[in-house]
């Protein structure tokens, strides 16, 4: 595999790694690559599979680009190509790390919040009320299902909720 072909292949690989949902596009690009360079698709796929293992393992173990390069050389790749790959790895690692963090387990993740507030005008017990209420709808992801939670708050509760959330934000920021 020439240097040029290798860099084209690396590009395809990294584009897939940074957008793991684009599986079809990746497969199309791979078969295009195979046809253009007159390599059969089967062996190419196998090679790609083993190459892909390296960045995934590297992420899990937080390897530096040096170590990635060393891994590739150990796998039998020429020094030039290994360095090129390691360079690409370094350039892409922020995106890849962010993706891995994004995949990390989250419990009951809050996805969305809607609200409305209004005035209670009257009830069966009080003819004229005039008290303000705030209704929040929280959309929570529980496993693979989405659950809607409806909560009502009084105004004082709302203000202390806002106050507490601002404290959380300060706390989160001091740890970033």
């Amino acid at each position: 595999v020439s240097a040029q072909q290798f860099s084209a292949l690396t590009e395809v690989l990294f584009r897939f790694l940074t957008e793991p949902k684009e599986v079809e596009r990746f497969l199309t690009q791979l078969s295009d690559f195979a046809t253009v360079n007159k390599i059969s698709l089967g062996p190419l796929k196998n090679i790609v599979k083993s190459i892909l293992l390296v960045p995934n393992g590297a992420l899990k173990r937080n390897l530096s680009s040096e170590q990635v390069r060393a891994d590739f050389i150990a796998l039998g790749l020429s020094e030039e190509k290994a360095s090129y790959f390691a360079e690409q790895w370094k350039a892409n690692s922020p995106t890849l790390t962010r993706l891995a963090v994004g995949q990390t387990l989250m419990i009951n993740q809050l996805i969305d919040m809607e609200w409305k507030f209004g005035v209670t005008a009257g009830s069966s017990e009080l003819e004229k009320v005039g008290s303000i209420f705030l209704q929040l709808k929280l959309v929570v992801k529980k496993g693979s299902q989405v659950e809607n939670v409806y909560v009502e708050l009084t105004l004082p509760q709302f203000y202390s909720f806002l106050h507490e959330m601002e404290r959380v934000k300060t706390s989160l920021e001091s740890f970033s």
Partner: protein
Amino acid sequence: QLVSALHNLTRHVVYRGLTRAEDILALFPENFHQNLKNLLTKIILENISAWRNEAQTSQISLPRLVDMDWRVDIKTSSDSISRMAVPTCLLQLKIQEDVALCGNGPVVSALTVELSKETLDTMLEGLGRIRDQLSAVANK
């Protein structure tokens, strides 16, 4: 019969939101005993705000927030990446189901939600907008 009549009287006063002695006195029939009328009015007036508050808290509503707690964790490692330092927030809301439905045994459930920093920022934006809308309404 007496208790029932008294109950109706107090309910009516609370419902109408009568706060002046004259209005309550006007409810009694003409030949009602004067001192008793005044005594009853006095007692009703003393209790009226407590009764109104209780009626408000026990009216039908969506589930209500009764308490909230939070903690901030730092995620240091996971199965997809072995070293990181990502802060995340766990928020626990204690929610009480509709009081009117539960009678004397209110059902309180706890919902724990996880928020990333981005989610929290978006939430704060939303809460800030609520606050602005509330003060706009209050200043009208």
